[in-house]
């Protein structure tokens, strides 16, 4: 679940980033967007710990896509730091969001299939030994 923890931490970063990146003319829109995206990212991260909603972290990809679109829609020269922060955080979020909860283990379905195959393999060996 380390990927979900990182997503939640990135959500926290988004939440505090309006105070880090200072004031801009469109600040209110930036702040609202950062807060909304942060809440969504953190909610999806936390909800993924609940088994029935274990795949909900994939919605974070949509949030990240929106953050990049928002940055392009509000672009100015030079690009305001809050928008650069949106782009980089969104790319990071996308990378983590595609990873499954127990990324270092085989998928559950494969674990079950492996176990069944191993049992069949051992049972067959046992039967062969007994009959011979």
């Amino acid at each position: 679940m380390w990927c979900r923890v990182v997503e939640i931490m990135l959500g926290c970063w988004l939440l505090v980033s309006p105070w880090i990146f200072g004031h801009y003319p469109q600040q209110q829109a930036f702040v609202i967007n950062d807060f909304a995206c942060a809440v969504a990212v953190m909610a999806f991260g936390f909800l993924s710990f609940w088994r029935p909603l274990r795949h909900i972290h994939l919605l974070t990809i949509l949030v990240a896509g929106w953050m990049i679109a928002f940055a392009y829609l509000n672009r100015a020269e030079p690009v305001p730091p809050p928008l650069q922060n949106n782009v980089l955080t969104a790319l990071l979020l996308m990378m983590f969001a595609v990873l499954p909860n127990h990324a270092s283990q085989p998928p559950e379905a494969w674990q079950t299939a492996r176990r069944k195959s191993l049992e069949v393999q051992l049972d067959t060996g046992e039967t062969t030994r007994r009959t011979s």
Partner: protein
Amino acid sequence: MTSVSFSRLEAAERSGPLSMDAAPHPWHYNPSRWSQRVPICILAGVGFLIAAYMGLYQWKLIGSAWDPFFDGNPQAVADEAPDIGRARNGTETVLDSKVSETMRYWFLVPDAAFGAIAYLGDLIFGLAGSTRRWQYRPWLVVIFGIDVIPLGVVSVILVVMQGFEVQAWCFLCLTTAAISLILIYMAYDEVWSCLLYLRAVWNETQSARIVWKTFWGRPTPEAERVGNAFLTAAVVPR
């Protein structure tokens, strides 16, 4: 569970064709094992640090960028780049060049920061997945491959083109380009095995549905059979 004891299952898991360390075709080692992947992640981490350092210079969060070998080219520096009070070296020229400024316009962030994210992606996708992910999570290996191979090739081409276009060379950019090439060399075996496995599933079943399921890591009896037949050695000595 049947009468088979847990310890015997574990033993069979370690030594049989279902071993997590089994070597897939065409190699005699498992390209997904940690000893193969961790060096890739470490090298990607080094690439990330160098790219992030250059990104900090492009953001002007640091005043200079290190270059022990190459001199700068004042004509190549973008009009928007601030005066740093002295002649730029090769790295600083390339990072402040018009080409770099154009890429910054496209990506909204400095190109070095974008590169840092790509190296971080190599690291993250290198760490994720089990030691048999070539079979159990082909999609992850393919994403890892896309991040390392085509993006690596593009970044190397960009660095070399930048040298000819800007008429200045950047030591750190060349270092990261070399890292990208080494990463491609180190990562291609796993990606190749994974693609061969998917092709073997296709050849065996001729079913796009089964290949699709296999790609997304959903087991089917056919994929399992092909996977077991795909091994060159069940157990590889450490």
